[in-house]
């Protein structure tokens, strides 16, 4: 039997202040990055928002003989497209992503007539196409580069998003995620306790804010796939918290003389092998995605890598300390009341509520 975690013991909660300190430091760095970038005139934005949320056009073109980035940029500039971002896909050398932002004046949803957005959404593809026509003709319609021997390139995909649609997508995703978290909060409160629910949900917020901090600091592009990644992170982080809470819930009635502090610490250690194996497997697959996934999935895989790692960390460093801290603040009287039925000789564990077995005086 292979088990490197036998008899492993580490006092996690003693380091809680250090853990929380590290988290706060990173979050402050993220905040400084976001606010600082926003306030710096002429600088970059807080987040490198992709076309999905900011509006604009991405054209994916496949070339027979791929021109250099500079040639493509020059061709685009010549036909009046300002500020294009040219991105190669790492795993497909003949394909290139051309991103055109909405014009500066058109980025705000307010004060811009519908007409402008319409034009932008409709014109993006046509503009890029007219610029690329300087490299040769396009394979149109059903023709591919293989069936049309004269064609120099083919546009294989377009994403055009108006500013209004972009902000709608963003708001919808944020609202859906927040509502989902409320659902999680209520369920954990029902199954465990409000203190645990708060711990798990605060840990989720911690993870999401940390991921966003990384995205702001390193200016990784925020697009729709990042939303999918964040949803995944939320699910994983809560999953992780519940595994440990469940173990605490199980240990509490068996160890009446220990403090919740010790019980939680032991629970973390008891489930550590599971945490390491699951997280290791998941993170390893994501790492493969970061390395081999290519340009299109870059934001998605980076968000997952950072977020899933943080999801494990936050269960130990954030969710558990917060649950315990809150219980210590609840005061002795409440805890005594809650424990009353289970401390009587009759051992009425089954009839006492879940709440009663998860609250315990915190002494240390």
């Amino acid at each position, binding site marked *: 039997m292979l088990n490197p975690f036998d008899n492993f013991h580490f006092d996690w909660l003693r380091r809680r202040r250090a853990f929380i300190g590290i988290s706060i430091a990173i979050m402050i760095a993220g905040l400084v990055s976001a606010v600082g970038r926003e306030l710096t005139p002429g600088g970059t934005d807080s987040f490198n928002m992709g076309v999905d949320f900011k509006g604009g056009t991405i054209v994916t073109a496949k070339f027979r003989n791929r021109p250099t980035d500079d040639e493509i940029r020059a061709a685009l500039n010549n036909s009046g497209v300002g500020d294009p971002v040219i991105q190669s896909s790492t795993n497909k050398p003949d394909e290139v992503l051309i991103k055109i932002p909405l014009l500066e004046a058109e980025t705000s949803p307010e004060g811009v007539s519908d007409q402008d957005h319409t034009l932008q959404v409709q014109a993006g593809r046509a503009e890029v196409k007219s610029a690329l026509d300087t490299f040769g003709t396009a394979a*149109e319609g059903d023709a591919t580069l293989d069936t049309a021997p004269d064609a120099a390139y083919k546009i294989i995909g377009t*994403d055009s998003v108006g500013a209004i649609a972009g902000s709608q997508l963003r708001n919808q995703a944020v609202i859906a995620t927040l*509502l989902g*978290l409320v659902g999680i909060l209520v*369920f954990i409160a029902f199954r465990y306790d409000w203190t645990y629910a708060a711990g798990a949900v605060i840990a989720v917020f911690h993870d999401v804010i940390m991921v966003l901090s990384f995205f702001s600091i390193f200016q990784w592009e925020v697009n*729709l796939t990042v939303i*999918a990644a964040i949803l995944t992170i939320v699910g994983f982080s809560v999953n992780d918290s519940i595994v440990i809470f469940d173990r605490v819930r199980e240990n509490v009635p068996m160890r009446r003389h220990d403090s919740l502090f010790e019980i939680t610490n032991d629970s973390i250690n008891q489930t550590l092998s599971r945490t390491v194996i699951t997280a290791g497997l998941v993170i390893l697959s994501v790492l493969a*995605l970061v390395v081999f996934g290519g340009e299109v999935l870059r934001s998605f895989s980076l968000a997952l890598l950072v977020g899933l790692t943080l999801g494990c960390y936050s269960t130990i460093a954030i969710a558990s300390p917060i649950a315990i801290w809150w219980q210590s603040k609840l005061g002795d009287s409440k805890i005594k009341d809650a424990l009353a039925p289970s401390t009587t000789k009759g051992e009425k564990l089954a009839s006492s509520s879940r709440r009663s077995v998860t609250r315990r005086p915190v002494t240390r």
Partner: protein
Amino acid sequence: MKRTGLWIRTGVILAITLVGVYMVFGPRRMPTSADFTWEGIKTNLAENINLGLDLKGGSHLVMRVKLDDYLKTMTENNAQAAVSAIQDSTEPKFQVTNNATVAENGNYSFNVTLADGTDLSAVAEAVKKKVDLQTWNETTSGSTISWTLGAAAQNVLKVDAVSQAKKIIESRINTYGVKEPTIQNQGSPTSGQILLQMPGVDDPERVKSLIGAESNLALMKIVSAANPAPVTTYPTVDAAKASLGGTVPANRKILPYAERDEPTAAGQTPDQKAPTRYVVVEYPAVVDGSELRNAEAVSRTGAQGDYQISFQFKPSGAQKFGEWTGKNINNYMAVVLNDEVKSAAFIKSQIFDSGEISGKFTKTSAEDLALTLKSGALPAKIVYQEERTVGPSLGADSIRSGVEASLGGLGLVIVFMLFYYRGSGVNAVVALVLNMLLTIAALVLIRSTLTLPGIAGLILGIGMAVDSNVLIFERIREELKAGFDIPTSIDLGFDRAFVTIIDTHITTIISSIILYMAGGAGPIRGFAVTLILGLLINLFTAVFVSRTIFNWELSLRPKMDRLSI
């Protein structure tokens, strides 16, 4: 160990697996031997799984009907029609001294002020005979009558306009030959947003111009001396206005008239366009586009650039048109398309049900125009908010990388589980593979669409399935270490881990259901659906199936003294 219970469990598992295999790989007809070849399996698989546009290629358009414009135009038209209804009456006290229209920021109303306020109800009756104002609130004060559109009535009109637009768009793209398009509301019905998905279309330009084309046809009477005098035209708008005494009354309109390339003066070549002139027409129109029954592009000579559009009216329109033409022999009539006079001709005799729009159209433009005329006029302009197209090759690439990522991850997990958990790792592998198969089968069963975010959900589902196995195995190991015998350890391990698994799964399922409901039609939904399915199925595969395999082991080797875990 009771064998009967085990056999029942095994039977259930086999039955579900067979159904799953059929759902994913089975043909939806009598199977033939070809279905059991590699190629046949792949074909059936492709047919069974409903791929999203991002994976199979196509166009995804989100458009918005400008409903504010629609209500605005409606208010203005009603105001104009009301005034002309009053003016048409010969009663002397029906004298409009003032009229005003409000049509912005969600307020739509108009009013008319009369010279004589004594018999307003008679005036209102006269107006309502000509103008449909049923849903408008009528109020009077002094000698003014106001009509206002309430918020509820506005919403009803908006919803109607959106569904009308959807019908029109549908008929336009159907005629164009798009296969299996989906048209649905996006967001609330009063937002005016419509989602159009067209599989297989990777350059939507022509479809877009077809959808957006505004074709408002109207046949109007020209204010002019009757035949044989030529039709009265004016060189400028001002000249036309002057003929009306300086201002344009509500029942008149000035429209541009570009006489096509017929030589009008000596020395002009036929190819040259005559300069645009203006004519005065009577408003409202005799008949409009809503009365059209059919329209088609026709060509006398078949030469490019020599197409016309002939049209027929519905019975009601033919009735109106016939009545009017009968009374107006030798008067001039204009065929007006999108507020531009396309042709002007005098009425030779009573005409009932057909007419034509002359002009030098090309074949494509004539066909598109006929198509848009036939489908009716859109209630208002359409703007595009989002346009995504995925070429078939890009879609195929996405499938490949999605499948590679999933299989790569699965392979990694399988190798690790077999290495780390040895014999019990086999349970995990069976459970994981079955989980993937059944999740896809469930997708097929509920006819859901697999999208790229859906694949992400599938991968997270696999991750949680691995987690369930790890939880169970680690727990069994703990119980073994605590000194329990093998059957008890397995029992305890499953029982304890099950509580955890249920809690983690229900939490994620709850949040996924909320995501599904609040996430709109977009990518979030695809993610939520596969994740929910994957988790539900995992409760079966990781717990029930894996447990059954352990029980078989115990039953076949009752004297087992070492569990390979």
